[in-house]
């Protein structure tokens, strides 16, 4: 028994030594950290994000890199746990000595890591956290996606003006800041336009039976149902709604964007709409180059998270080039002055609040394809 304990301790020590040797980077590389969820409930988000930023850096490195050096992406997994995000970000900063940080998708994770990056003066770009509080943490925290205030308003405008629905029910995930935020912003804009919210029901992430809420919504007889949530639950919700005989379209947000959505919901999703960052069938050449490169490398269509990660990585590289340095403060200033960057997810400018100003698209679900229906510019919703 004692021998076994001893052997285990030795093995663990050996493992630690091997690991720490493996992580030494060469000084010829610029190390950029990325923290994401590669396992756990939102693993597909983390994997797309990693693949997107990797693709951008590969592309840049192939053209000779920046500042005469190649960029190396160091990725850490937080297992879909917000409390782990802080731990891995500390490791990236203190052990790997990265000069800048990319991440995270989920706002709760970004909010856990942002104060650390701020305190260490490491510029952090979140590719896709949409909660307003993320960039309010401090002047080193940026994002390249639009905000939930904008996203909620965009869907409200589309529902009221284009679909011409007047009565909407909302089904919200109460355990997610993202979902609750969108519920508020959509509701405010929709009521301002003259619409009516006829029922508000809630669920919690991880629930799998939504019949009770849907039955209550059905009784309120809405023209459309807004479900700002993640695809894992949304597919199930729409599936169960159709079984209960609810035929009105469902409207959603960028959390829907995943091929898995169609796998779960299937034909029940036909004719539903969600707001998103870009559409793969957008004819813009920047979009088409990205889509083709991504397909060639990973053999699948990139989702919006991959596109945002790609843009975040390129904006970071662009800022480092303009700053002529990888020094935290100079890179920060360069990111802050980004203007009209021609990204896959639109023309991106960073405003004083360190948020991206850009357009959003409305995508229609049709037989497993997500088709571009309308592009809504920031000026259109005020």
């Amino acid at each position, binding site marked *: 028994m004692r021998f076994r304990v001893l052997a285990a301790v030795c093995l663990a020590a050996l493992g630690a030594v091997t690991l720490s040797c493996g992580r030494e980077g060469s000084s010829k590389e610029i190390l950029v950290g990325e923290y994401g969820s590669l*396992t*756990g*409930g939102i*693993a*597909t988000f983390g994997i797309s994000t990693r693949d997107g930023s990797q693709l951008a850096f590969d592309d840049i490195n192939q053209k000779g890199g920046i500042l005469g050096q190649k960029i190396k992406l160091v990725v850490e997994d937080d297992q879909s746990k917000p409390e782990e995000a802080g731990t891995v970000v500390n490791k990236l900063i203190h052990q790997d000595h990265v000069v800048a940080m990319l991440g995270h998708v989920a706002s709760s994770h970004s909010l856990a890591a942002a104060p650390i990056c701020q305190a260490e003066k490491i510029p952090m770009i979140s590719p896709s956290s949409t909660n307003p509080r993320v960039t309010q943490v401090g002047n080193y925290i940026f994002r390249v996606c639009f905000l939930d205030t904008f996203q909620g308003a965009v869907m409200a405008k589309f529902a009221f003006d284009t679909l011409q629905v007047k009565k909407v029910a909302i089904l919200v995930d*109460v355990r997610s800041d993202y979902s609750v935020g969108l519920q508020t912003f959509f509701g405010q804009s929709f009521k301002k336009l003259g619409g009516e919210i006829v029922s508000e*029901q*809630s*669920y*919690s992430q*991880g*629930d*799998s*039976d939504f*019949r*009770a*809420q849907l*039955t*209550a919504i*059905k*009784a309120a007889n809405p023209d459309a149902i807004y479900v700002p949530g993640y695809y*894992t639950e949304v*597919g*199930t919700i729409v*599936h*169960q709604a159709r*079984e*209960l*005989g609810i035929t009105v379209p469902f409207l959603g947000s960028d959390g829907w964007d995943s091929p*898995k959505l169609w*796998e*779960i919901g299937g034909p029940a999703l036909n004719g539903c709409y969600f707001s998103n960052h870009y559409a793969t069938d957008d004819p813009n050449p920047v979009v088409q180059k990205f889509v083709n490169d991504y397909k060639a490398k990973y053999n699948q269509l990139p989702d919006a998270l991959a596109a945002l990660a790609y843009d975040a990585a390129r904006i970071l590289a662009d800022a480092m080039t303009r700053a002529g340095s990888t020094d935290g403060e100079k890179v920060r200033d360069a990111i802050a002055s980004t203007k009209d960057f021609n990204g896959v997810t639109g023309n991106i400018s960073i405003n004083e609040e360190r948020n991206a100003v850009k357009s959003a698209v409305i995508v229609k679900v049709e037989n497993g394809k997500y088709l571009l229906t309308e592009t809504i510019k920031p000026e259109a919703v005020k």
Partner: protein
Amino acid sequence: MTTFLQQLVNGLSLGSIYALIALGYTMVYGVLRLINFAHGDVYMVGAYVGYYLSRKLQGEEPSIVSALLVMFGSMIVCALLGMLIERLAYRPVRREARLTLLIMAIGVSLFIENVAQLVFGPDPKFFPSLAPRTAFLVGGVRLTSEQITVIAVSLLLMLLLRYFILKTRTGKAMRAVSFSLDASRLMGISTDRIIAVTFALGSALAAAAGVLIGMQIPKIDPLMGIMYGLKAFVAAVLGGIGSIPGAVLGGLLIGISEVMVVGYLSSTYREAIAFGILILVLILRPQGLLGRVQKEKV
């Protein structure tokens, strides 16, 4: 009114699932005085076995035959798994303190959950449809074929179980073991065999619940057993742990009250209700609704 009846149907189909899982808790408690915490995970494995079996059968048209094959296949695999857990984890420590057994149960549960994440993958999977889907309208209430299947299959399995326990020799032996383990051994009952049979039966029922929930929801993931297992456990306590009709009653009550709370109040209280009931029962009627008071013998 229609909305209320619709909610009642929703509650019944959810409650049937809880009842099927609760039966396994109650039966094992009956013979071993053990809360088998790994039971919820057996239910999860049941859903996954069903998933892989139906993927194997895919290509064929969804039919009653393939649905039955999937259901029985999953029940058999989980019955074996239940016996394996009992043989490897519980039997070696059965003579130790009650606490050892309980901690073992928690360990087995965590072990299965984590191995399942490695083997099945951590992301959710989507259960293919096994039988042709239809829906009937009865007085404004919509009954889907899945809901009817869930309620009917659960009812049938519970009746079969009742017959087995009351009318067969093995069932009689199970009742004897549950009455007194030591006395049964003295009477020449092979208690090891009876305990194994109890685990097999309970696990098979959990597997059936897993396949039924897969058909109904239709999303499964490696951690789905935790919440369902806990609520089924509450159902078993509510009905009176050790009592088989109690487990069924408890399951239905929890299912219906949960759906009513979500439908008429807020989903935030969903879990609060299940566990609130548990606390109330423990305070007001510790033996449960249909349970017997057991006197401690010195």
